[in-house]
């Protein structure tokens, strides 16, 4: 059998292709993005449809339509994206699907790149839908592949919920064959009242959905993703990736505990749990995020009359916050057993610099923020932010953003702030992809409800933070075909905005003037800062500091925080990562930063 080194996200994509997926939709979001990027890459070769949808709700609905015909579909997103898709999801669970539908929703305990640590397993339980929790990239692939058939058997969407360390970790994965796309059956939508939800049907379908819970549980009882590894009378339960930490921890501690591995946290399979209760005399449940398995196990123990003590999050042994690792899990086990916790490794490090992520050298967002900061001097303006690379405008020295909540909230929250403080200036920043995702309803609301704010669309021709995906503003789609890109200025104008300016932030003096005019304007003003992300398009330019002119005031570094500027031997210098945006030349009072004439990079 052929093995290949695959990232968890690639393994999930591979599982979908091995299952014969026919339609894939997604909105990018770390740590889920590479599932779809991988699928998009192979869409032509294996003849399936793949689209970056404009947001997660749209993605889920497009896939639902396709699944109604009997086609196999996958939808991918990150955990907070599921909130956006919650509306169709909650009712789709009642209606059900015909073709297998797998929702790959990636969670981010830590969090590493997210606004919160919400648990998709809890969401699945809320929606009454089954969820798989993989413990490795191999299992992620196997579960994904299996989930399509399960979805068809249950006629329900099925979740697979990898976490960051599964998504962004590689492993040797065994590949299986990919079915011939030409041998797929033809699908067609068959008209039937069951596809249109009405209150009466809803009640009937809710009853059906409740019955399906027991059917799912019965199926899960027989799956080897859930299994007992027998040992002594100490019982440890682990869901998903925690299973691997538990294995390493028990090994290191030399404790031969009995382990119950859970691969389907909802609905919890009852047979292996009962068998496990009969083998052990106390139980510790280790799962990241919410006590999803724990609460179901306590319910089951109580309802079935098992007299056994169950530890986990509810008695404080296992934290609800943050991500786990082997060392943390060892401590949980030691706390549970009342044995001494291991000593911390003793070396204490010298003080190290704080290294937070920052905008790239030459990022046009830096110039946009700086233009508005200059324009807002002395105005005590509030800058609301949104989700994307530009969220990094929060960090020092720019400190350009005062708020960040969720996708699309920059515009709407500025409008809310304006209602209470109409005399103060509010400036909302939003990226191009985010504008298409949930920015447009906010814009419409601003016009209609007369918000007197400035909206700045940072249009850099890509969805940069999640890996440079295309979006509806571009003339190219996910699989590289030409398409009709939607013009942001045309939308803004169509919404009735009277003040609209488009400017290149790298043309700094002009950008600053536009920023001043927009903030001074009485009424809704929209500024589109248009310059491509430096990672997708750059000129072959570089700057350097003329040592004889530089007085080492370090104003350039302190104001902009461009990572290409540094001080060496008491002198400001520009390193080879400079992209030649020229922003620093506008702030240098000595004109000491000048373009290098060179013969190409």
């Amino acid at each position, binding site marked *: 059998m052929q093995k290949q080194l695959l990232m968890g996200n690639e393994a999930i994509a591979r599982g979908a292709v091995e299952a014969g997926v026919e339609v894939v939709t997604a909105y990018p979001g*770390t740590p889920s993005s590479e599932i779809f990027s991988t699928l998009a890459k192979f869409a032509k070769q294996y003849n399936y449809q793949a689209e970056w949808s404009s947001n997660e709700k749209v993605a889920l609905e497009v896939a639902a339509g396709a699944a109604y015909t009997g086609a196999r579909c996958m939808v991918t997103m990150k955990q907070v994206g599921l909130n956006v898709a919650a509306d169709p999801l909650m009712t789709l669970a009642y209606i059900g699907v015909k073709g297998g539908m797998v929702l790959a929703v990636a969670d981010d305990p830590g969090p590493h790149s997210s606004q919160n640590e919400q648990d998709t397993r809890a969401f699945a339980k809320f929606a009454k839908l089954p969820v798989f929790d993989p413990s490795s990239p191999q299992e992620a692939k196997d579960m994904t592949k299996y989930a399509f058939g399960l979805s068809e058997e249950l006629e329900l969407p099925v979740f697979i919920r990898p976490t960051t360390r599964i998504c962004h970790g590689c492993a040797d994965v065994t590949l299986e064959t990919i079915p011939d796309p030409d041998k797929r059956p033809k699908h067609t939508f068959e008209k039937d009242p069951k596809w249109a939800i009405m209150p009466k049907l809803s009640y009937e379908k809710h009853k059906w959905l409740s019955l399906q819970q027991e059917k799912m549980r019965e199926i899960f009882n027989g799956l080897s993703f859930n299994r007992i590894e027998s040992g002594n009378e100490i019982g440890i339960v682990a869901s998903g990736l925690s299973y691997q930490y538990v294995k390493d921890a028990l090994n290191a501690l030399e404790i031969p505990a009995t382990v119950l591995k859970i691969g389907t946290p909802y609905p919890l399979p009852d047979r292996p749990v009962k068998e496990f209760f009969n083998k052990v005399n106390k139980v510790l449940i280790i799962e990241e995020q919410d006590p999803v398995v724990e609460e179901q196990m306590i319910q089951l123990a109580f309802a079935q009359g098992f007299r056994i003590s169950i530890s986990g999050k509810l008695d404080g042994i296992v934290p609800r916050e943050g991500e786990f690792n082997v060392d943390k899990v060892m401590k949980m086990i030691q706390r549970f057993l009342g044995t001494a916790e291991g000593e911390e490794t003793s070396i204490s490090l010298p003080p190290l610099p704080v290294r937070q992520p920052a905008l790239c050298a030459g990022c046009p967002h830096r110039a946009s923020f700086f233009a508005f900061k200059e324009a807002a001097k002395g105005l005590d303006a509030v800058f609301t932010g949104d989700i994307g690379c530009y969220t990094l405008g929060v960090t020092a020295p720019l400190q350009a953003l005062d708020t960040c909540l969720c996708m699309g909230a920059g515009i709407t929250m500025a409008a809310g702030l304006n209602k209470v403080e109409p005399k103060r200036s509010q400036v909302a920043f939003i990226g191009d992809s985010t504008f298409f995702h949930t920015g447009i309803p906010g814009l419409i609301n601003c016009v209609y409800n007369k918000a007197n704010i400035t909206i700045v669309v940072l249009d850099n021709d890509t969805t940069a933070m999640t890996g440079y995906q295309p979006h509806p503003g571009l003339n190219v789609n996910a699989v590289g075909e030409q398409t009709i890109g939607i013009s942001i200025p045309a939308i803004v104008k169509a919404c009735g905005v009277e003040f609209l300016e488009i400017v290149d932030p790298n043309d700094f003096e002009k950008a600053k003037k536009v920023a001043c005019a927009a903030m001074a304007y009485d009424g809704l003003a929209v500024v589109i800062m248009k310059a491509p992300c430096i990672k997708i398009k750059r000129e072959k330019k570089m700057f350097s500091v003329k040592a004889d002119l530089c007085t080492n005031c370090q104003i350039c570094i302190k104001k902009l925080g461009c990572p290409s500027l540094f001080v060496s031997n008491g002198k400001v210098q520009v390193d080879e990562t400079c992209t030649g945006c020229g922003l620093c030349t506008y702030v240098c009072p000595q004109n000491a930063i000048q373009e290098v004439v060179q013969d190409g990079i």
Partner: protein
Amino acid sequence: MEYNVMITGVGGQGSVLASRIVANAAMFAGYEVRTSDTIGMAQRGGSVISHVRFGDCIASPLIANGNVDILLGFELAEAVRGLKMLKPDGMAVVNEQVIVPPSVYAGISEYHEAEIKDFLEATVPHLHLFNAVQIARQAGHWKSTNIVLIGALSQIEDFPLNSDQLLESIIQTVPAKMKELNERAFRMGIRHMEELKNGHK
């Protein structure tokens, strides 16, 4: 057998690719492999860590404290950040490049280069500290620093993967048009270590 490599650096230095190259080579060599990389926000100049584990039977994708056999440091301070994880007799191959983060210029934190370097030298008995970015520039581009470091890694005594396996993995992993540059960078990393060895004799 179980072997743990930790790669620490600054987002954008190419540590994710390095982790993939080592992991791929380990798979060629017939081992079970698990890795974990920092992808996402931290890739924009934040601290990044990759764990690469291979051996006969590997469970967790993260290395436990004190279990790192080799630390591959892409930047001076980031290498020191990873030291807590190193085995007492672990090795370190470190690029001595210093990348001062914006927080230092903003007055939020400090970068004590001399102190950090002294600490590294005093704490790690088997340390190879050298200017990999300089060698990468000589090879053709600073961006091949990661490959120079992998070249150096291949020369570490008892490292379970040999240079042929690593080179094969590099060729498979990097974009075709970067092949020549990276092959050169790899060989220069090897040569640097050989010169060190001969110099010590």
